[in-house]
């Protein structure tokens, strides 16, 4: 985690004071609702179905245990004892009172946290690989660059009022766990032939109403030019992005309308004037950020699998399963990263209670170096656990309900809050997720089905990333009733968008439909290694469509 210096702290404190004043004036009737809306949104505050919703930034998904305790405290004191981890590595509180939000922000500031730009038409929280800095397949640790971007984007004077929201993701590993191809800007940290760090720059990806995979505008951008190049992209977008229709306002629409070639030329032309200017990154700054990043004091451990772990793997079948699914390879010998599943059957995907947060914070202190990660799959991660301790940790997690061995499997459902909370929703998503989890509760069956990403969004905004789920479920509104459209064949990395299999279905038909999809898959797969999404790729959607709709005896309502 990056630790603030006096200036970082002052900027956040001044923001709290500013928002306190704005809220006071709004409540006193001195600021109109129209004025206050964009201002509160830039502090992560929505007015939702039941109450305001406050979204707190977790920069690139890294949390210290004392920060998680503070989140637990806030959940307990100002909310109903629950927080919801979102697909953007943030946390949302669904029940705070508007009057207490300045107080909450002040509490957050005491642990170097904030809600700055977690909403609104500005540059949002930068996201990255949840295993950044620890993944065995990592080429370059992206966290320093994420922090550089965080500072650059925080209160950027020119880009506070963009045509629409703007999301940046950075990846530095072999596997793209940051969904970089479906962000407004995706950055791949890479090295050139000389070993110098730079970025492949991808622009114009995104989900939502018009899902698109981004295009590469630069194969290699040297690190020194990162911020000036971002300035150039944002300036072209800020000036020429559409502002007349919010559904056509994202940068992906501009890139498409201009054509990627022309867009790229505009950016390069703009960049010529900014290049080598004062925003050029200097190595001293990278060193300064690196020095302020907490680094775990790893012990020197042997490379071999510890005896204790070996024993437990041999004798405890449930542990073996969990180890296979929820434990991720670490770059330091003798360590592993552990995913805590927030997706137990019957749970609300991404929800954690205050007590659970406290418990996780304690585990992070005892089994790691006091650090926790939030994944965009809405799970929590203990990044640095000694392999020899895995079995002990497993038993504790089991007692807490965090040891469901379903990471990468069908019930590790990504779901947005949907109609239960979100005022934009067409349909609820949580009950659908729960019904599917219940249907596929049998672990043996889950394992037989193998790797499968199932993502649910309550509306076109696609916060649940349904387009890139192997199976995607989208809430749609049909004459005021809740219906669901199913897509299959989506994939996060490499990014592919799912295809709609047919008319939308009612809520009670969804578990059956998923069941049919799985039957078709199991029937058709050539061997166990062939995943659901591979079969869709090989056979297309037709057999699946037939499977779902042929057996649909109920009346099907056509979209």
């Amino acid at each position: 985690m990056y630790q603030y210096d006096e200036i970082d702290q002052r900027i956040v404190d001044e923001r709290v004071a500013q928002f306190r004043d704005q809220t006071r004036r709004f409540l006193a009737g001195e600021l109109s609702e129209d004025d206050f809306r964009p201002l509160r949104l830039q502090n992560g505050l929505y007015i939702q179905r039941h109450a305001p919703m406050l979204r707190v930034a977790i920069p690139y998904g890294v949390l210290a245990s004392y920060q998680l305790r503070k989140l637990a405290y806030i959940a307990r004191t100002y909310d109903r004892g629950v927080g919801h981890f979102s697909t953007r590595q943030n946390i949302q509180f669904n029940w705070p009172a508007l009057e207490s939000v300045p107080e909450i922000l002040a509490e957050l500031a005491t642990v170097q946290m904030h809600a700055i730009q977690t909403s609104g038409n500005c540059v949002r929280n930068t996201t990255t690989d949840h295993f950044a800095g620890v993944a065995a397949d990592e080429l370059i640790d992206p966290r320093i660059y994420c922090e550089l971007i965080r500072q650059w984007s925080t209160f950027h004077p020119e880009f506070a009022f963009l045509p629409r929201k703007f999301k940046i993701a950075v990846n530095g590993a072999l596997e793209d766990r940051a969904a970089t191809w479906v962000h407004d800007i995706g950055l791949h940290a890479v090295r050139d032939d000389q070993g110098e760090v730079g970025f492949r720059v991808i622009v114009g990806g995104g989900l939502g109403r018009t899902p698109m995979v981004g295009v590469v505008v630069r194969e290699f951008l040297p690190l020194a030019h990162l911020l000036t190049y971002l300035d150039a992209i944002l300036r072209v977008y800020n000036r020429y992005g559409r502002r007349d229709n919010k559904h056509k306002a994202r940068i992906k629409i501009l890139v498409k309308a201009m054509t990627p070639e022309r867009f790229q030329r505009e950016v390069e032309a703009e960049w010529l004037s900014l290049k080598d200017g004062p925003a050029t990154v200097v190595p001293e700054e990278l060193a300064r950020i690196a020095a302020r990043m907490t680094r775990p004091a790893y012990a020197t451990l042997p490379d071999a699998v510890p005896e204790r772990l070996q024993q437990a793997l041999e004798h405890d079948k449930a542990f073996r399963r969990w180890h296979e699914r929820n434990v991720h390879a670490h770059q330091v010998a003798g360590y592993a990263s552990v995913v805590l599943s927030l997706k137990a059957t019957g749970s609300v995907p991404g929800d954690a209670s205050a007590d659970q947060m406290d418990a996780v914070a304690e585990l992070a202190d005892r089994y790691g170096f006091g650090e926790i990660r939030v994944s965009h799959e809405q799970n929590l991660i203990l990044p640095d656990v000694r392999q020899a301790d895995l079995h002990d940790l497993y038993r504790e997690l089991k007692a807490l309900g965090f040891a469901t061995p379903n990471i990468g499997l069908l019930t590790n459902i990504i779901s947005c809050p949907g109609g239960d909370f979100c005022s934009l929703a067409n349909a609820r998503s949580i009950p659908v997720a729960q019904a599917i989890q219940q249907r596929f509760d049998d672990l043996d069956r889950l394992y037989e089905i193998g790797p499968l990403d199932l993502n649910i969004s309550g509306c076109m905004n696609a916060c649940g990333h349904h387009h890139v789920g192997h199976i995607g479920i989208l809430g749609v509104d049909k004459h005021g009733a809740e219906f669901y459209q199913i897509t299959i064949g989506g994939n996060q990395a490499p990014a592919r968008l799912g295809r709609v299999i047919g008319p939308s279905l009612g809520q009670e038909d969804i578990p059956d439909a998923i069941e049919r999809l799985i039957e078709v898959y199991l029937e058709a797969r050539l061997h166990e290694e062939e995943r659901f999404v591979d079969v869709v790729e090989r056979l297309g959607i037709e057999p699946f469509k037939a499977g779902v709709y042929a057996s649909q005896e109920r009346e099907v309502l056509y979209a």
Partner: protein
Amino acid sequence: MLELIRDRAIVRDTYHLRTDTLDGILPEEDVIVSPALLAAERARLDQHQGKLGVWLETSEGPEIIAADLARLDLVVVHFSSFTDGRGHSTARLLRERYGFRGELRAAGDVFKETLHYLSRCGFNAFALRPGESLTHALGGLDVFSEAYQTSVERQSPLFRRRLQNVASEENPL
């Protein structure tokens, strides 16, 4: 005559806005014209003795007045909504790319909350929307004592200034 904020002081606005025609203009009056009128009446405006300003909408980029900047005393950027960030880019371009040194005024939906960003983008004058207190709005310029990025107000980004601080602490001359 209206009052506005210029260089952190509350002053009277001496300009008159003339959008369609220069008819009836006094030789010494300070005048703001539209880009179209500026183009159409170039010769006459060259002879004009009062100060000369031009009025841009946020949809109009600085390119359209680039050739005239040398003879302009004022550029007004009019925000029909404070959330239209195009005006922020216009201001930076005018200051940083075209080197405009005259008065750069934000008008329209301008109030206390918007001043901080506008000022960092290069606006030095603010004509507030009706009903806003100028004294109150002045406070909007001092909400933040620091900023990370390079801007018109502070060319050097925080990361360079941090370095200078370190250097001067280590090496007190």
